[in-house]
């Protein structure tokens, strides 16, 4: 009789094989860890680990390459879709994805994002939208909600001064080059399952040469929002979801 309490037959969950032992730098309650895990699971389950090249952003996920044991390139701020375009065009048999935050994808990298999508590059874009700049300490993002306080909008985002929350996934969905534009979250077990399904769909689309897929994950930033992890989840559901509703915007 086994003395181990972890009898293999009882094992229902394990760390994805592609995630290494490096201690994550993400804050407690941050969505990045869960999304990293989903990406790692999808790559492994689809048998893509030897042909996948990830493009990391500038922002909180800049060190994504430290956690997933695949080949990575770390892009300049906002330029991940340009790198991904070249990597995929030069290596059409590889799986190429970018992992980007809202500042990277929807502010400084807007041109690269829109044009890669408009060309229908066969890449998957994982887009973390937490409505704030986490890495640099909580400044306004293009996706920051109206009246939301950040370190550069201390009195709240004022549309006269700062414009409106940019729904870039909706915008991308208008482009013929985009085959999948979908928005999810990872705040509940059910949401995590749905998000994983759509990340897998995005990867499959890339392999099938269907065009650009974007999976937006509406995420928490408990440190930037100055909330507890649980409080951040509640706040996200109450405030982010009405502006960034869950589900497919385009799925063909």
């Amino acid at each position: 009789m086994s003395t181990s309490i972890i009898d293999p037959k009882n094992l229902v969950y394990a760390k994805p094989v592609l995630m290494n032992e490096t201690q994550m730098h993400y804050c407690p309650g941050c969505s990045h860890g869960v999304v990293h895990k989903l990406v790692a699971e999808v790559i492994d389950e689809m048998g893509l680990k030897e042909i996948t090249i990830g493009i990391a952003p500038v922002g909180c996920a800049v060190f994504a390459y430290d956690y997933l044991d695949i080949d990575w390139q770390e892009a300049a701020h906002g330029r991940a879709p340009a790198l991904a375009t070249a990597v995929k065009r030069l290596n059409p048999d590889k799986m190429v994805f970018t992992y980007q935050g809202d500042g990277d994808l929807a502010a400084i990298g807007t041109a690269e994002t829109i044009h890669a999508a408009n060309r229908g590059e066969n890449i998957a874009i994982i887009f973390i939208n937490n409505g704030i700049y986490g890495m640099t300490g909580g400044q306004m993002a293009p996706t920051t909600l109206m009246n939301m306080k950040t370190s550069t909008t201390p009195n709240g985002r004022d549309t006269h001064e700062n414009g409106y929350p940019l729904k870039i996934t909706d915008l991308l969905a208008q482009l013929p080059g985009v085959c999948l534009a979908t928005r999810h979250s990872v705040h509940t077990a059910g949401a995590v399952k749905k998000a994983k399904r759509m990340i897998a769909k995005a990867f499959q689309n890339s392999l099938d040469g269907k065009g650009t897929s974007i999976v937006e994950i509406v995420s928490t930033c408990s440190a930037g929002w100055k909330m507890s992890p649980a409080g951040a989840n509640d706040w996200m559901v109450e405030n982010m979801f009405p502006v960034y509703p869950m589900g497919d915007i385009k799925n063909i």
Partner: protein
Amino acid sequence: MSEEIYLMKGNEAIAHAAIRIGVDGYFGYPITPQSEIIETLMAEAPWTTTGMVVMQAESETASINMVYGGAGCGKMVMTSSSSTGMSLMQEGVSFLAGGNLPCLLINVMRGGPGLGTIQPSQSDYFQTVKGGGHGDYKMITLAPASVQEMADFVDLGFELAFKYSTPATILADGVIGQMMEKVKLPEFRRRRTEKEIREQCPWATLGKPADRKPNVITTLQLDSAVMEKCNLDLQAKYKEIEANEIRYQEIDCEDIDYLIVAFGSAARISQKAIELARAEGIKVGVLRPITLWPFPTKIIKEYASKVKGILTVEMNAGQMVEDVRLSVNGQVPVEHFGRLGGIIPTPNEVVVALKEKMGC
């Protein structure tokens, strides 16, 4: 078999040479006076023959970052632009240098600053040679003075870039890009296979096989001690390049009293100018740096003990003259003659400047 000689523009020669030597990808954005490079590539459609990828990007920012992505895969990738477009690329250039990524950049210079002019200039010497982007880095810089060298330096640029795992630039000017001359193009060479790239560039991100650790192309090191090591490694590499890769041409430099130092089309003009000057009895030769970095410091210093003065001829307000003065270290007078704004100096103007500034 008879030798194939073509008549074409410098820009066209670059495109044909790139296809022939097995370049994997070109990513660029149109700008005068170098748009013939991408136009020629598109017309030749090498994706149907060699498999070379040619892409018109949405901006120079995108094209330099496409080069970064391709270079990170160990591919032979290149871009080309002109002055203001190169300015836009400088963030990416710094990343390529910091990431130790081989690639070829081509700047067919026009006059600046700002939009400036579409006419030829050499005013990006500082930007290219001194590091136009941020951080401590150097750029292998080749200065062609003929259409033949435009063709030849594509191969040489890639050879040096891969030898030292660092970007290289062909710094041409609008004259060299636009003028037509005879050219012998390089022999056709097939593109490397993925297996060959994996062997040549074990760091390339082409997908991680089971038997190695992940490859990561990054320029980020938050630990200052680690970052300083990265900086020192770069500097050590640059020292090696300075020791091994200096190239220059001496034209009529035997028994000279005066030396003209000039690169690119200014060197071609100076070559004519010394003929005129010699007809007047002035003993003058031209030293043409082919590599602007690494700069031919030693040979210029040697000439400083043989001549009465040195004149640099540049299509700018005086940029390379600073490196010549550093080489000479005050031993003889070093003066500069230049025309700006897209004006191409005439050989006669150079002779007049030589007499006035050197007192000969």
